[in-house]
């Protein structure tokens, strides 16, 4: 399966580790790399050494501010890119990602309702974003279903319709809300991890971990599903059941991240593509794990830029879009749009 690609496979697989350590040094309060290591070791073993006079401050900055945000960015990148890769296999189209299901529009509407009307209730934004994106997905799936089957074209079309419906509802919410609340809705919609702490990590990371594990275990099945319904059935796969499991898992994976960080686009489209190009194979046994590590690295670096480029926070969704959209245009041009015709 790997052959000569073993070197680059393990290099990319473990790339998140150095980027993780590097990200701990970045921010408005500079922490030298060796101090980051000392602080980390000290927290594991208090007898490791004495540390510098600022160690206590470093500890506060690292553990209370940077670490939760970095963990969230890492797992957010995993959620977005792995969901993208698995949806591309299920839909037999390398140019789709979680947005095709109307999932982001659903999450956006849910969060907007919560922020606009019930801002005081803690955790409600997450719950609303999660339920509405789930609802959008269910709507897409059941609109597309015909006699127990959902073809790719009808699923994509249903996703477009559901997205339009939820976006229209979102516009109504924006219209009726107060200016202060409107700005927080808009900010959330642009996607950001600026306010994330350990609460947000606990709300999303365990779910992302479990769903990622399920997709990882089903990565061979993803290969077979990408061959089309009749072939996958002939090869022994219960297509309707397995596809539903993957779609549900994927929705859960994405919405649990979107509910804490808002809408961050393009990661799920760009990363799996990049991985297929780098590894020269569409085999999901390779694409899923490497998409996870590169997706984590990509969102982490984008977030590093978002929080350090200017004196105030940029929404990370803006940065991923600035990189992702031109990349997508390039791919579309290179492929002559053929991927949509299938």
């Amino acid at each position, binding site marked *: 399966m790997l052959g000569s690609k073993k070197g680059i496979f393990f290099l990319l697989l473990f790339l998140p580790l150095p980027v993780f350590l590097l990200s701990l040094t970045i921010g408005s309060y500079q922490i030298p790399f060796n101090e980051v290591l000392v602080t980390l070791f000290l927290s594991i073993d208090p007898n490791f050494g004495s540390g510098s006079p600022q160690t206590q401050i470093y500890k506060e900055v690292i553990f209370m501010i940077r670490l939760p945000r970095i963990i969230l960015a890492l797992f957010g990148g995993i959620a977005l890119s792995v969901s993208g890769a698995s949806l591309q296999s299920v839909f037999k189209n390398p140019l789709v990602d979680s947005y095709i299901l109307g999932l982001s529009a659903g999450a956006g509407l849910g969060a907007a309702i919560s922020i606009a009307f019930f801002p005081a209730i803690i955790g409600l934004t997450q719950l609303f974003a999660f339920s509405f994106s789930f609802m959008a997905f269910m709507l897409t799936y059941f609109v597309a279903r015909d006699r127990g089957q959902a073809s790719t074209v009808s699923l994509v079309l249903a996703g477009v319709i559901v997205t339009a419906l939820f976006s229209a509802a979102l516009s109504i919410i924006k219209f009726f809300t107060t200016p202060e609340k409107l700005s927080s809705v808009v900010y959330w919609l642009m996607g950001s991890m600026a306010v994330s702490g350990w609460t947000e990590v606990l709300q999303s990371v365990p779910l992302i971990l479990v769903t990622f594990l399920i997709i990882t275990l089903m990565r061979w099945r993803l290969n077979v599903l*990408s061959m089309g319904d009749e072939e996958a059935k*002939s090869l022994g796969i219960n297509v309707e059941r397995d596809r539903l499991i993957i779609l549900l898992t994927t929705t859960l994976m994405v919405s649990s991240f979107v509910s804490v960080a808002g809408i961050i686009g393009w990661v799920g489209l760009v990363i799996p593509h990049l991985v297929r190009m780098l590894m020269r194979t569409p085999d999901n046994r390779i694409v899923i794990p490497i998409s996870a590590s590169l997706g984590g690295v990509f969102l982490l670096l984008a977030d590093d830029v978002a929080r350090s480029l200017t004196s105030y926070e940029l929404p990370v969704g803006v940065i991923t879009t600035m990189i992702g959209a031109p990349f997508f245009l390039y791919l579309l041009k290179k492929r002559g749009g053929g991927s949509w015709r299938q």
Partner: protein
Amino acid sequence: MEAIVSVEDLSFSYGNTFKLNSISLNVEAGTVLTLLGPNGCGKTTLLKCINALLKPERGKVIINGKNAYELKRWELARLVGYVPQAHVPPFPFSTLDLVLMGRTAHLDFFQQPSKLDRQIAERALSMVGLSHLSHRPYDQLSGGERQLALIARAIAQEPRLLLLDEPTAHLDFKNQFLVLGMVRRIARENGIGVVMSLHDPNQAIMFSDSVALMKNGSLFAVGPPHSVITRERIEAVYEIGVRVVNHTDGSFIMPSMENFS
């Protein structure tokens, strides 16, 4: 001889029209049955009914003593290998990965193919003579090579029955015979039953043990090639004048040139 597959009184309709009308057939181990008939006569529909991709209104398909419509997909895929017409999939898997997909029915739900599965896939590839192309992306193969790779994938399923939907479509003259010869050899050597659809009566004569001649969803005649493929029957089914040409290798069918003057 033991029957690998028995089709019993199978009927399938689409809207108000019969696509298949009370079809009954048997295929024995190690033999090749060819479905012959004009476009739209129901060959592909019959193949899909045998593979339970379509569920007929009436009738049964018994494969290796089991009712095909009561089996789970993975149970059926261990008995039946289906070879679709050569195509280009959306993702350019390597030829070996494509063949390895034939092992899916032998894996647990969360399992990935093992080293043993890989060896079985490699053996299937070498059986069709494509070992040298195992790392080449499948979409870079020629039409004939693709068809052979799909046959290798079906062999990797280790099935009792092989179904092929027009395995010679889009292939050049040489590759058509290469593929058909391969199919017959695999059937003989492994005791696999084969059902395939063809367009050319002469290829049916050369490569099958029995022929089912179909017209408008019904069986017109079934039996050994030479007793089924006669001038009268071919003219009735294809609605074209033909002649029988006798050759030392057997009798073959030629269209009469009067049709075209």
